[in-house]
């Protein structure tokens, strides 16, 4: 068992814990007691929404694939997890890989695919090993193969290793990479459901999304829909990191407040410090200040707070750290990871980084603040092919919106009024 930190699987009431190695009861039910269309409908009923970042309704996505279209179809699993602050897919793969395997097999059967590919980030040596072992075990038990559990419906799962590029998490860039190309997003339409991997209809889901499926099939979509909120049902895994006493991956019923997640589950900030700001859904989710700790974890509440649920990565920063430096670090990330295909993203990211550098070198003025706002606007609202540009823009925009004074301290008064300043940040 891999080293773990958090609450996932510690308590039997936690949903994702239930389906374990040797179970595969949901797969049996799916193959023998249900029609493929029933599976898709059950997932629709559950209200499950994608856990990769975009939060798209999973059952609806499944229904986009024409099961009866001739020729191969694929399930592609997004295990590229690279959104800063997010570790939950690694956690699931290391601790409960069979849940993922079972979910993949059910999804493949539902959409009429015989082959699934797991695109897993190259740095995930241990998760890869765990998943490979689980697949081998499932194969040995006859759950994967030409006749899984005796059913005349071949199912197979293979891994494809990524090689270090954040953009590969974006679904169409991932498909390009899987096809052996530089990972640059495609323009849509056509959507992957019509023309995905190797030009074939493809269902693309995140690891956590698929890991939730066995529970839904075992217990019914209606039971799942009862958990969480009306529009964001279920539980999800939140990765809580940064300045908290008990960082970890915590499974929570959606709709809890961030105060509960950060202050109770994760133990709050270290002694004598205060939460200053948090990213509620990975580094791409616009920041929320401490005064908004009572916002709840559902997508609707977060949208109302002008942020998003994203990947569930909750990054907490306390009052000894400087927001401008944190934003600078994240912009360096987005600029470095830009694939270079769209001009606003390619140019805007570097421009923002240079502007932050001037500000942090005490060479800033109102001009730099205006530049940041202008670059941020230029990156947002669909000016780029994928969400990477928007994310970079949101970091600038949301930190400026909530912490203008800190920016002005730096840019106009050339001072930092925050206690500890991270070395060479």
């Amino acid at each position, binding site marked *: 068992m891999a080293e773990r930190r958090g609450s996932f699987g510690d308590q039997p009431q936690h949903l994702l814990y239930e389906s374990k190695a040797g179970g595969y009861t949901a797969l049996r039910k799916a193959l023998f007691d249900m029609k493929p269309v029933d599976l898709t409908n059950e997932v629709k009923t559950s209200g499950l929404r994608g856990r990769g970042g975009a939060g798209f309704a999973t059952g609806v996505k499944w229904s986009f694939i024409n099961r009866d279209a001739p020729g191969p179809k694929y399930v592609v699993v997004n295990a590229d997890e690279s959104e800063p602050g997010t570790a939950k897919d690694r956690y699931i793969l290391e601790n409960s890989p069979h849940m993922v395997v079972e979910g993949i097999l059910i999804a493949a059967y539902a959409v009429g695919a015989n082959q699934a590919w797991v695109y897993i980030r190259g740095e995930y040596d241990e998760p890869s090993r765990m998943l490979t072992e689980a697949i081998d075990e499932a194969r040995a038990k006859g759950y994967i193969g030409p006749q899984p559990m005796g059913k005349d419906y071949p199912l197979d799962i293979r891994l494809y290793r990524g090689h270090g590029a954040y953009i590969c998490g974006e679904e169409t860039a991932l498909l390009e990479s899987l*096809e052996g190309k530089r990972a640059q997003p495609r323009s849509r339409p056509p959507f992957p459901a019509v023309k995905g991997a190797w030009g074939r209809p493809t269902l693309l889901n995140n690891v956590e999304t698929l890991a939730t499926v066995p529970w839904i099939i075992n217990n019914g979509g209606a039971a799942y829909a009862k958990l969480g909120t009306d529009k964001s049902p279920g539980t999800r895994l939140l990765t809580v990191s940064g300045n908290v006493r008990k960082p970890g991956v915590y499974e929570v019923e959606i709709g809890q407040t961030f105060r509960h997640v950060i202050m109770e589950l994760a133990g709050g900030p270290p002694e004598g410090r205060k939460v200053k700001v948090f990213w509620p859904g990975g580094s791409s989710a616009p920041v929320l200040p401490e005064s908004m700790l009572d916002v709840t974890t559902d997508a609707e509440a977060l949208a109302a707070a002008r942020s998003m649920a994203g990947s569930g990565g909750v990054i907490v920063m306390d009052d000894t750290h400087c927001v401008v430096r944190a934003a600078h670090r994240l912009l360096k990330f987005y600029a470095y990871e830009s694939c270079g295909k769209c001009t606003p993203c390619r140019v805007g990211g570097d421009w923002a980084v240079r502007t932050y550098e001037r500000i942090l070198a005490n060479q800033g003025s109102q001009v730099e603040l205006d530049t940041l706002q202008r670059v941020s606007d230029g990156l947002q609202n669909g000016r780029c092919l994928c969400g990477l540009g928007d994310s970079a823009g949101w970091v600038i925009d949301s930190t400026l919106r909530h912490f203008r004074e800190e920016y002005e301290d730096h840019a106009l008064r050339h001072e930092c009024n925050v206690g500890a300043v991270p070395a060479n940040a």
Partner: protein
Amino acid sequence: MSALSSQVLEEIKELPAKYPQPRSAVMPALDLAQEELGHLTPEAMSEVAVALQLDPGYVEGVATFYSLFHLEPTGKHRFYVCTNLSCMLRGANEIVAHVKQSIGVTHAEQVSADGLFSYEEVECLGACEFAPMMRLDHKYHYDLTTERVDQLITERRAPTPLTPTLSPGGERERKPRAPRKKKADG
């Protein structure tokens, strides 16, 4: 004399058939090449291109896009230290400074004088709850402190049985190894 051994070239030629379209073999092929040589030389990339019947420029274009492909020599053990936000908030920059000082290098392209070490600052490695953390020799190392870094370096400097089996760059085990089994990631 080719850069890649004939065994590896044979393995590479078998890769395209394993995918719905042959082009998908390019990254697994570059993996094999890097595994053997420690980093991807221009000759190695050309040989991969010939083996896969692809344009050398195309193969190089793919290799340069992805950060896990190294086009320059690396140390036998490479520290991939995460410096993204969650790790930065818990002292990643001090860890980087300590690694650089301890192995005697000033930038990511440099290899320590004894050829054993190099380092790189990387983006979030998806283990933020264990920050600060890094990847070294195909393993994640958690809750880093300067003492822990010293220990990892000392272990690798000592002539333990661990070190000789690792290839330059710490990427995979060195040859000889049996041809790949048909497994999930075959």
